[in-house]
């Protein structure tokens, strides 16, 4: 008998074969004494095990065993903090508090950089007109470039 046949026999005993397959194995067991002997052994072992899981008493007293469980239950039972906020709001606060801290830190770190980015460019620098009639001049002051340019037109 090959191993596949043995496994089919076992599956038949366990009711794991489809009806057609089960009939074929039943017929085989009827005519083959070796298969019948194996079926008897597997069946007897199955029956012996069924409902006979070894029993075992816990080697600890009821109180001691429970005390260890009870310690683990306690955190879940701890009363809610008395700030009176509804649960959904507490959830948001829990999320928003660290987010708020991050935003503040980001502003402190990147704020000066952002400000320097928005300094006026050359094109938007104020134009200063000379009060003299015969000399016209234009002055451009760029803080970002760190320079001042004056065009003087004498014509």
């Amino acid at each position, binding site marked *: 008998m090959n191993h596949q046949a043995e*496994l089919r026999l076992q599956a038949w005993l366990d009711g794991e074969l489809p009806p057609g397959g089960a009939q074929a194995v039943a017929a085989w067991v009827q005519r083959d004494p070796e298969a019948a*002997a194996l079926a*008897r052994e597997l069946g*007897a072992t199955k029956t012996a095990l069924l409902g*006979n899981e*070894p*029993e075992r*008493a816990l080697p600890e007293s009821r109180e001691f*065993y*429970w005390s260890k469980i009870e310690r683990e239950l306690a955190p879940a039972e701890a009363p809610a903090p008395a700030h009176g906020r509804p649960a959904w709001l507490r959830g948001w606060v829990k999320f928003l508090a660290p987010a708020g801290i991050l935003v503040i830190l980001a502003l402190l770190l990147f704020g000066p950089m952002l400000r320097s980015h928005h300094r006026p460019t050359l094109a938007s620098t104020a134009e200063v007109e000379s009060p003299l009639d015969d000399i016209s001049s234009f002055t451009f002051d760029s803080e970002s470039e760190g320079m001042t340019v004056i065009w003087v037109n004498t014509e």
Partner: protein
Amino acid sequence: MAHKSDNSSASDQSLVRRAQRGDTAAFEELVARHRDKLYARAFSMVRNEDEAIDLSQEAWVKGWRRLKQFQGEASFVTWMTRIVMNLCLDHLRKQKRLRTDSIEQMDEELGGVERQMPAVSVNPAAGIERAELRAQIDQAMNQLTDAHRTVLVLHEFEGLEYKEVAKRMGCSIGTVMSRLFYARRRIAVLLGGLREELKA
């Protein structure tokens, strides 16, 4: 909160309902009622007293936290048994105890040495007290590998089908069938041997 003596006469169902509302005294009564069963199942799987105690306690804590999910489709003790069984499977998996080494794997594929032996004709359950049979099964199971014993526990004691056993153990149905065959034949030989020892 109900007194201990009231709890001892209450049904599991009513204790569960009260525990679902946060009554720890009712839950304590459920633990007291079914702790041996859960511990025995954990021991069947891990074969170590301390580990079995820890795993069964972890199961009770998990059960308490998930109690609201218990709808009563199965009995409470069946539900709890599934929890402890899953924890034991995780535990065995973490310790890599569900793996078989290459020789064992080859043995499994071929059906093991037991495959070559003639069928055992002794009925292990015949003419024997139940307690004694259980003690013999316990002794025999101690000699199986974790992988073979686990298949036996899931299939024979928990009544799971092949595909369900395969899913829980993370292996193929073919492996489950081979392991089960090997484990059964080994148990048959061991129980037969124990019977012969008793006769002698």
